[in-house]
């Protein structure tokens, strides 16, 4: 390996892996797919997670929505109890068994549903961390339960769980790397395809790793900025 790095063939191997036959396109197109899946899955995950968290914490606080709470519990158990790659294959080969469907949509649904389960527990922790006095204050101001939840409790909860949410976003981005299992050409699969053509492990794998790392660093920074912004409103 050191030999490879030091020798003049470094440039040659770079050319072979990325320039020849426009192989860089596998990486760029793959990155586009990875980002598309991640962005839409995050949106589904947050909406789904928020709904589940509200149902669960409402049940815990008031004993209402008993049936919905049971359904949510089953959802959480099943999704958190099975690997995401298995869920992805089930959704592709079984649930959409004989349907011609865009695989990006399949992946977005699979990762969205998966992420929703984790986001739900993050949000529930956030809601439960808000003092009951906030609820009482909301109710005494004439808000009903739903209004109290949306205008008073959720904004505070969101701020508390932001670091955990940022973490989930990072995990989700990296988990999409199993999309290749349903023949979707995401970033990881793009690298794999180059590897299957050039038989060089170094360049494709390191390039893919660096791209993931860069995106995660950008995301971390963005979450940090958002955190600081929200903290300003404390005063």
């Amino acid at each position, binding site marked *: 390996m050191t030999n490879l790095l030091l020798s003049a063939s470094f440039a040659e191997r770079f050319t072979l892996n990325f320039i020849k*036959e426009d192989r860089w396109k596998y990486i760029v197109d793959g990155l586009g797919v990875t980002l598309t899946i991640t962005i839409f899955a995050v949106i589904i995950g947050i909406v789904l997670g928020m709904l589940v968290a509200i149902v669960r914490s409402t049940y815990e606080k008031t004993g209402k929505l008993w049936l919905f709470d049971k359904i949510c519990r089953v959802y959480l158990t099943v999704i958190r109890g099975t690997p995401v790659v298995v869920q992805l294959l089930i959704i592709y*080969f079984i649930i959409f*068994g*004989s*349907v*011609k*469907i865009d*695989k990006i949509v399949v992946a977005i649904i699979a990762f969205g549903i998966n992420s929703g389960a984790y986001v739900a527990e993050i949000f529930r922790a956030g809601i439960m961390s808000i003092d009951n006095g906030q609820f009482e204050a909301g109710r005494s101001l004439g808000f009903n339960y739903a209004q109290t939840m949306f205008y008073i409790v959720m904004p505070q909860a969101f701020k508390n769980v932001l670091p955990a949410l940022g973490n989930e976003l990072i995990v989700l981005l990296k988990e999409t790397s199993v999309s*290749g*299992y349903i*023949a979707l*050409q995401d970033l990881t*699969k793009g690298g*794999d*395809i180059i*590897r*299957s*053509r*050039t*038989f*060089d*492990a170094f360049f494709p794998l390191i390039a893919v790793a660096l791209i993931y790392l860069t995106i995660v660093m950008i995301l971390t920074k963005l979450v940090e900025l958002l955190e600081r912004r929200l903290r300003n409103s404390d005063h």
Partner: protein
Amino acid sequence: MNIAKKILITVLAAFTLLSVASCSSSEDANTLVMATNAYFPPYEYYENDKVVGIDPDIMEAICADLGMTLKIEDMEFDSIITAVQSGKADIGVAGMTVTEDRLLSVSFTDPYTTAKQVIIVTEDSPIATPDDLAGKTIGVQTGTTGDIVITGDYEDEGLATVERYNKGNEAVLALTQGKIDAVVIDNEPAKVFVETNEGLKILETEYITEEYAIAVNKENTELLEKLNASLAKLKESGKLDEIIGNYIKAE
């Protein structure tokens, strides 16, 4: 006579001791690690929790000849050459076609069999010749000859969409579910897939003919020579045809 016998026995005993000693000192040298992708019947597939098929049988016969122990490692097809190149495996045997690109990274033994690339479609498919693949979605296994050829002939020309599955059976499953229009894969696995899935057929026109060989690390010329010598013996004795005949019925 007696003395000659004694000497012979002593020498044999010494050799045995030596070989045992060399065995224990470098166990690795006597184990031949074979990288393969066991989703490629009848060349390699799982049966009773064991990888079996033409390739494992051939390698068992070669190892018996060379006095080595075979160890099979199942991995993704596109990782096999990298594994051989980096020394993670001694050889790659996976119904692997000798291609110029692969020869840049590894050496190949003499070919042990020939194979064809064929097109699998559903029975009611309008696709009748390779030309009909234009405008269709074609499933392949990542990194296989089918993938390389279809990518070059159809995707790069903007003629068709290629979907690359990790395993051949997954591409076939997608075909039976109507997700893709055709699968391009090696003839023998194609036969098995068509037999086990209803409503599929193999097009008469074969796509391309190729030769399978064993991939060996470029620096390991000694192993390459040994394998070639052993392979020649198997061919001569008819053992090779016998192994292949066990799995592939003559048409």
